């Protein structure tokens, strides 16, 4: 009697590590010393030997893996659903009940072993040579489960002879489980169902011929990897601590959010207060602009204030140039030549209206590259200007009166008072889809070519 789930076609067992792991768990559950306590279970008038109770299974799992009973119950249920443990009562539903309900283990590796063991027992050691080899090999392979194999073999032989009621019940439950697992009824979930076949790509089942080419590429790759500037581990790891520490209070799933989490309270206030363009940003939001230059630029309100600040320093063209370059990089392919021309006219040409101050070498290379425009042709210039803003203008912005004023003005929302009647039903309104809103003049927030310093 084949036990446990048969692998679905198209996916080798090797590719399903969870089945192997489940088997290991089930085998350790059957360990005579450390495993689940096995006893004879009374089922009405029949006595079934070598059975376990649902609650024993749950307790054992909870203890072995140091998990809660809820989780142990879930894990046990998964084992039952895959047919590794089958219920002796009500075999039509593959559930794990954490009570006195009796269960038994399928002997997964049984198949051939049981057949040979039966033959050995019946004919008292008259297995032919190759059968003997097979028998020995199997014995070595599933040593720890051998007792169970022998037990199963003996039981099946006895059952064949006597057809005792208890045995018939056990066999019926086994078969029932087998079919429920491998051929689930139409509406039931199929635990064996896999997604669309993987590894169907030719590369996966083919051993790449390890040619000289292959090794040379490998050597080059690893040499490059060795030569790469690597940051010291301690620095990298510390960076996580400081990043998480800094952002923790800003993380709604860790620290909650004020006035309340809209999903929990059904109150949109948080979203209204934190809309992309809002007149009065919250304190947390203004604080975030100080975390990194990227945070500042990504926030439309932050970017607008930064643009104002640059305007006061007469370097607003830097940000506009950067925005124009972004538009080029992420724009449609057909737009590339037009956008490159426009950027050149406005920012790079000698005497341009908003000429950006790039070092001569980069400028030279960029102008050279403009003869064959492509979307990355302005990368070097863009990086130069970005770094200029980041290293120079941005720190000054953070120290400026303007920013300090914004920080002081920004408020912390009050926590929403708890409703007196928490069960009051609040009608939920659909938010308007962005697809319905009038399309903005420029895509995203890039508007460097529109003239002017303001953000739309």
């Amino acid at each position, binding site marked *: 009697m084949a036990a446990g789930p048969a692998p679905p076609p198209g996916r*080798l067992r090797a*590719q399903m590590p*969870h089945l192997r*792991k489940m088997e290991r*768990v089930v085998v350790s559950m059957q360990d005579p010393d450390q495993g689940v306590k096995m006893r004879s279970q009374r089922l009405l008038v029949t006595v079934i030997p070598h059975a376990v109770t649902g609650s024993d299974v749950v307790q054992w799992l909870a203890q*072995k*893996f*140091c998990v809660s009973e809820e*989780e142990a119950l879930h894990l046990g249920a*998964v084992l039952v659903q895959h047919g590794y443990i089958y219920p002796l009562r009500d075999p039509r539903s593959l559930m794990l009940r954490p009570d006195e309900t009796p269960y038994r283990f399928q002997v997964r590796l049984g198949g051939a072993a049981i057949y040979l063991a039966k033959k050995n027992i019946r004919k008292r050691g008259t297995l032919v040579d190759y059968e003997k080899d097979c028998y020995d090999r199997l014995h070595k392979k599933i040593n720890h489960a051998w007792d169970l194999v022998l037990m199963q073999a003996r039981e099946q032989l006895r059952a064949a002879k006597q057809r005792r009621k208890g045995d018939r019940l056990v066999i019926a439950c086994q078969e029932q489980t087998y079919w429920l697992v491998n051929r689930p009824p139409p509406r039931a979930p199929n635990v064996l169902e896999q*997604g*669309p076949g*993987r*590894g169907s*790509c030719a*590369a*996966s089942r*083919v051993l*790449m*011929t*390890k*040619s*000289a080419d292959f090794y040379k590429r*490998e*050597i080059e*790759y*690893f*040499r490059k990897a060795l030569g*790469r500037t690597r*940051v*010291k581990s301690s620095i*990298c*790891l510390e960076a*996580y*601590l400081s*990043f*998480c520490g800094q*952002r*923790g209070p800003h*993380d*709604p*799933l*860790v*620290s909650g*959010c004020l006035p309340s989490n809209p*999903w*929990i309270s059904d109150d949109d206030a948080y979203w209204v207060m*934190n809309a992309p363009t809002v007149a009065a940003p919250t304190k947390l939001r203004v604080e975030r602009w100080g975390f990194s230059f*990227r945070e500042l630029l990504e926030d439309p309100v932050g970017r607008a204030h930064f643009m104002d600040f640059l305007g006061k320093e007469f370097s607003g063209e830097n940000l506009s140039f950067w925005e124009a370059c972004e538009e080029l990089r992420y*724009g*449609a*392919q*057909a737009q590339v030549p037009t956008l490159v021309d426009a950027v050149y006219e406005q920012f790079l040409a000698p005497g341009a209206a908003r000429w950006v101050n790039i070092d001569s070498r980069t400028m030279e290379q960029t102008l050279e590259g403009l003869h064959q425009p492509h979307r*990355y042709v302005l990368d070097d210039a863009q990086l130069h200007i*970005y770094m200029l803003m980041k290293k120079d203008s941005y720190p000054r912005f953070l120290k400026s009166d303007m920013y300090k004023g914004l920080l002081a003005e920004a408020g912390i929302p009050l926590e929403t008072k708890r409703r007196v009647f928490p069960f009051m039903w609040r009608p939920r309104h659909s938010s308007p889809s*962005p*697809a319905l809103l009038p*399309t903005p003049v420029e*895509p*995203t927030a890039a508007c460097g070519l529109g003239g002017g310093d303001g953000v739309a």
Partner: protein
Amino acid sequence: MCDQTFLVNVFGSCDKCFKQRALRPVFKKSQQLSYCSTCAEIMATEGLHENETLASLKSEAEKVQKKKAKRHCFVLHQVAERVEALGQFVMKTRRTLKGHGNKVLCMDWCKDKRRIVSSSQVCHEHAVTMPCTWVMACAYAPSGCAIACGGLDNKCSVYPLTFDKNENMAAKKKSVAMHTNYLSACSFTNSDMQILTASGDGTCALWDVESGQLLQSFHGHGADVLCLDLAPSETGNTFVSGGCDKKAMVWDMRSGQCVQAFETHESDINSVRYYPSGDAFASGSDDATCRLYDLRADREVAIYSKESIIFGASSVDFSLSGRLLFAGYNDYTINVWDVLKGSRVSILFGHENRVSTLRVSPDGTAFCSGSWDHTLRVRGMVFCFPVCERREDG
């Protein structure tokens, strides 16, 4: 009974010597040919210089690789010992979306933080029925005005969203990407005009939406690519992909080159997601672990696993601060990990079939999980018990 694998013997005309022999598939410059064993051996030794043999090259490759692996390092949870432990979270399902009549395979949030697009075995978003049966990937455009999706049809199509009842959405569909195998993941870049795709044909590709032109392709995975994520970087254009070859690879979008690769997982990588700072990424795999890879240190720095977790992780995502890692598993559960300490903070039940997709909302107020049980659940944090009595929970 033990399983057997069969070696398929193809017989035919060798692509090199044209003799009728038993053939083996070989790769020459990413093109697959069929060579007889003699020609295959000869090809293997092509390109050798005077003093080189295949064996010597192989041993040198191994030596250099070992040197790379030897750099001794700490792991994250050692450094994080002094960090205060998180409290105990109570996360509750606040929305259960039951519109799909079938397995939910993929979902994405709109930037407006409230809308979701999801795909399933038969796509019903905005009443568009896709011609293929499994729609395994979907993505929302940054503007919120379009969605992209694809799957077993080997294509990625973009649908502009419209609320005009008279418009037939399928008519406006634009076929953007064409692969030679199923589409496993797709994502818009910073605008509505470019799409990045990953496919079962082992490649990733960058496409121009308007023209459908292939802008760049990325070769290097040895098997199906299952997932990708774009880096939240300020200057560079990079993205990470994970595949059935157990590798996670970081690519330069401009040159098409792989800049870094990580191979410590023991099975298919189902999901990759960048850490919010962009300096690292997490991966979820069929080997039931999630791992954190640091890009600057160029190695794995944390592994999130537990003996009681047996099933593969199908989908991972970080909370806004990167302190929490949410992972959906094939045993129907969601585990929440403390990224710094490496411990499991919480286990969430509720789904009745495997969790296939999981994303945190753009403003971090909630996360949504989609499952083969036909539902999507949006969960938020209701309560957090402060740390006064710590439970011994791994």
